[in-house]
């Protein structure tokens, strides 16, 4: 049986832990709202971009001189897995889920005899991937210095990826991030980004007479890197919202658990206090009777 003083110390320590988790939960809730608004604000651009891509890709994809970013290098030996994680912890299984999805794809690809490389965004998840694939980390992108990843970061990442691609470092790139469904549900998602899969739903019939300035190929050559940026940017935003959502849920659970623990400890504390008083009384009474 723990002494009264020990119990009191434990209650105090759990109470301060609860304060921290509660604060983190409220911060996450506030940030989540902002992250969600950001993600929504970026949607119109992404949608229109996808529309334009769809209508253009349909026209050019069949041709021989189609850009490599669209048609691929002709082989699919080296796969690059771009894994987007967060920089901070305290968000439940958020990072673990993304890493798990990436690793399972990596294992599948390795089983098929392909080479797997990693490109990591964010600080978390590096250790796990490094342990599993010590030599496969091609590059890392540091987001610790910016408060929230924005378009500038997406731009840099996309440029690096395009450069690596043009240098022939990989043939296919997959992007792993967490899709934001709700504050309670985030889905680890895999998406192929290079070569760019043609978006669906481009209605080619009504745009048959579109004039292109300059011609289709040149527009497409400019559009593809931008499309890549948009996709990465979208993924970063979804990730930011998911992180806050996951963090909020995890911290809510932690706060509740701490509450339960405090209750249990308090009951135990009161019982031992009572027991101590009873023993003291018995001693006094026994002493008085002995006289």
């Amino acid at each position: 049986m723990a002494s009264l003083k020990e119990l009191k110390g434990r209650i105090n320590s759990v109470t301060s832990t609860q304060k921290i988790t509660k604060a983190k939960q409220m911060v996450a809730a506030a940030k989540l709202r902002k992250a969600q608004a950001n993600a929504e604000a970026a949607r119109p651009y992404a949608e229109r971009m996808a529309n334009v891509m769809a209508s253009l890709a349909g026209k050019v994809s069949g041709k021989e001189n189609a850009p490599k970013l669209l048609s691929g290098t002709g082989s699919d030996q080296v796969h690059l897995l771009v894994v987007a994680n967060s920089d901070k912890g305290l968000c439940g299984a958020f990072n673990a889920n993304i890493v798990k999805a990436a690793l399972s794809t990596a294992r599948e690809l390795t089983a098929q005899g392909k080479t797997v490389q990693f490109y990591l965004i964010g600080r978390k998840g590096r250790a796990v991937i490094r342990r599993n694939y010590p030599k496969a980390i091609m590059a890392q992108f540091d987001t610790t210095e910016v408060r929230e990843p924005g378009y500038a970061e997406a731009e840099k990442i996309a440029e690096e990826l395009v450069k690596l691609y043009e240098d022939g470092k990989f043939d296919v790139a997959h992007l792993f991030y967490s899709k934001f469904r709700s504050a309670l549900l985030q889905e680890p998602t895999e998406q192929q980004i290079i070569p760019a899969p043609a978006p669906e739903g481009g209605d080619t019939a009504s745009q048959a007479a579109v004039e292109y300035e300059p011609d289709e190929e040149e527009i497409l050559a400019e559009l593809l890197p931008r499309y890549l940026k948009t996709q990465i940017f979208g993924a970063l935003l979804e990730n930011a919202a998911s992180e806050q959502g996951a963090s909020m849920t995890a911290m809510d659970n932690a706060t509740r658990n701490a509450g339960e623990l405090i209750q249990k400890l308090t009951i135990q504390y009161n019982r031992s206090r009572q027991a101590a008083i009873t023993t003291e009384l018995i001693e006094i009474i026994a002493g008085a009777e002995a006289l």
Partner: protein
Amino acid sequence: MALHFELVTPTKLVRTDDVYMVVVPGSEGEFGVLEGHAPVMSTITDGALKVYKTEGATPEEIRIQGGFAEVGDSGLTVLAEQVVD
């Protein structure tokens, strides 16, 4: 008689409005878009979009960097990389 005009950047929908005419800084020269313009898809250079709210009005200039302009049935959509204030 109005042209539906939308200006979108990656971070947000900057403007959606019905205007009279917009002059777009296309990479092969500026072009004005009125209502009923034939479908065009063009890259744009860094420059100013001139938005004419009504006929003969003084144009409002929006400086943009890089991107695309698309004219379709639904009007003019400008996908700009960045809007400079």
